[in-house]
């Protein structure tokens, strides 16, 4: 049973980590808590669903197209809302409230357009096969999704740490003004970040929609809560920390069920969250010792 639970923990954790990835990217580089990330996540899943069922595209084409769609949505939010607030030097509250407005708008539109029923991807889209190793079993689909998430996460971390682009982005995260003085095209990179973060959010929606068969206009909200929890646990500013935070949250939930009781699962994870905020506000895996953002 324990081996199976370890597999479960990795699979759940990578789901949270994938969602947290785009969320933390925006926070780290733009300094904005983007509460519309759950909406983008949801619309990404719907976009893929429509491309697969209405346009009859194969999955390998639907995934990138839906990701681009989600990315463009993120870009629009940045260009129409966040940029205005940036220019004005608005306090933290403002982007939070504007993105809440955007999230409400997206949920409501999705409900009007697609109905409020839970939908799923066509069941015959993928093999429903199981990989079995001794007492452990993993659906093949789930294993591929975990694999794909890991690839996306590693790729992002590699870009941020090892490339010139990543270097420029990290400079912006430190101080946009200093970065601009160094000749870094700050605005363009803000747009790029918004696009990539939203595309990753859309990918998360598609992959999670695929593995759990639950696409609904309201799927973004609970995931947003988990995303917030993941980045607080891991650390608000670094992508690597948030990914670890997501994995840690998944593991906490699974092992709370395994060793304690599923009734205390949420109490435990939120209690832990609270403690981390009080004793280690930079997060369990965050390096910077800043307390105010």
């Amino acid at each position: 049973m324990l081996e199976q639970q370890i597999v479960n923990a990795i699979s759940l954790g990578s789901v949270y980590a994938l969602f947290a990835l785009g969320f933390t990217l925006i926070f780290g580089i733009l300094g904005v808590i983007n509460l519309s990330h759950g909406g983008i996540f949801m619309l990404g899943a719907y976009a893929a669903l429509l491309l697969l069922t209405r346009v009859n595209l194969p999955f390998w084409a639907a995934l990138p197209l839906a990701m681009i769609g989600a990315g463009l949505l993120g870009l629009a939010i940045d260009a129409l809302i966040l940029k205005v607030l940036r220019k004005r030097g608005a306090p933290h509250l403002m982007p939070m409230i504007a993105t809440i407005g955007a999230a409400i708008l997206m949920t409501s539109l999705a409900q009007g357009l697609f109905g409020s029923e839970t939908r799923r991807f066509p069941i015959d889209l993928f093999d429903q096969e199981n990989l079995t190793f001794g007492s452990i079993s993993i659906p093949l689909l789930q294993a591929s999704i975990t694999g794909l998430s890991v690839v996306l996460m590693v790729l992002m971390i590699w870009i941020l740490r090892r490339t010139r682009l990543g270097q420029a982005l990290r400079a912006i995260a430190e101080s946009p003004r200093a970065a601009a003085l160094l000749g870094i095209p700050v605005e363009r990179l803000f747009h790029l970040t918004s696009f990539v973060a939203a595309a990753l959010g859309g990918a998360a929606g598609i992959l999670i929609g695929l593995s759990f068969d639950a696409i609904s206009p309201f799927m973004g909200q609970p995931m947003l809560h988990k995303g917030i929890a993941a980045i607080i646990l891991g650390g608000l500013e670094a992508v690597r920390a948030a990914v670890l935070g997501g994995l840690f949250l998944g593991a906490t939930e699974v092992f709370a069920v395994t060793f304690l009781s599923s009734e205390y699962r949420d109490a435990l994870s939120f209690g832990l969250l609270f403690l981390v905020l009080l004793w280690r506000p930079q997060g369990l895996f965050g390096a910077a010792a800043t307390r105010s953002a």
Partner: protein
Amino acid sequence: MRTHLLPALLALSALLAQPALTRAEDIRIGLAEALTGPASQYGVPIRNGFILAQDAINAKGGINGNRIVLVEEDERGKKEEAINVYKKLIFQDKVLLAFGPTLSNSMFAAGPIANSARVVAFGTSNTASGITDIGPYIFRSSPMEADVVPVTLKTAIRHLKLHQVGIIYGNDDAFTKSGYDVFKQALEAEHIAVVDTETYAKGDVDFKAQLTKLKAAQPDAIICPCLSEEGANILLQARALGIKVSFIGGNGFNSPKLLENAKSAAEGTIVGSPWFDGNPSPENQHFIAAYRKKYGTDPNQFSAQGYDALFIVANALRKIKLTGQLEQDRQALRDALPAIQFDGATGHFAFRPAPPHNGKPGGYDADQTPFVYIVNHGKFTLLK
């Protein structure tokens, strides 16, 4: 003779004086359901069932020539909106009776408003216990879990030869939690051991940790008082983990969506519910065909209950004489309802008075025998 003649003459002169009155009048009935927000996945099918019934009744001449008009309001599944909407229906739209709200919690908020205004609040989807304790104007056509679950369980025990079971349910939702409470009681009464109890929260999509634990406890069956969208997911993940035993569901499992979403993973699932899509009665088959034709999707239990509820009220309306005096008509409708019996999409229906609560009179619960059925080769099949 003279005494009868005078009112008749008066009535005749009134008719002559006001020709407008001879035209059919609308009978206004309120319908408060969650049409937006997460609860709309139940509220919208309920509304659809009601509209279908309204059209059917009016197409056949309404109530003695008067049309039934549903005054529809969205209560968003929120308690304050449920109160506001109920007040609007009762005091402003002056409806004879109000249906809804969708969720039990909203009924706990809106019911007292109707009860103190002496207007019937008629729930079609509220299964929590205590609803009809609000007062004598509270009616519901949805059988309580406490009525459905023991029947389901007895049938399942007989069919599956159960000795020990596991349970998984949502512990942050009034519907699933009260389903669990009733199952637990029924299991104790039948002396069935519970080897493991697991919970989840609203919005969860991954149930593998709980299911892995359930699997290790080796139950003969897993009891799942869940809603159908979680249910399908739980079934699929359970099968992927190699759990082969049957699932036993409550009210929420009873949906064509469960089969559509879970496909073969649903095989062997036993469900108890007041509505059964395979029920061959002409009323039910007619309802299903008409629903498909109008909305292009399959109905579920919630639409069937809404559909039947309007016919129940229509039958009561046929029994009374509407005077145009709002308060009098509301009271007359209230007094006519308890005696109504009806054979509809959900089978035979009658009301049962709720026992008095703290010395105060209660309302009326549904008195219906649930269907117990099993998923066999991808179809719901009745279990004897």
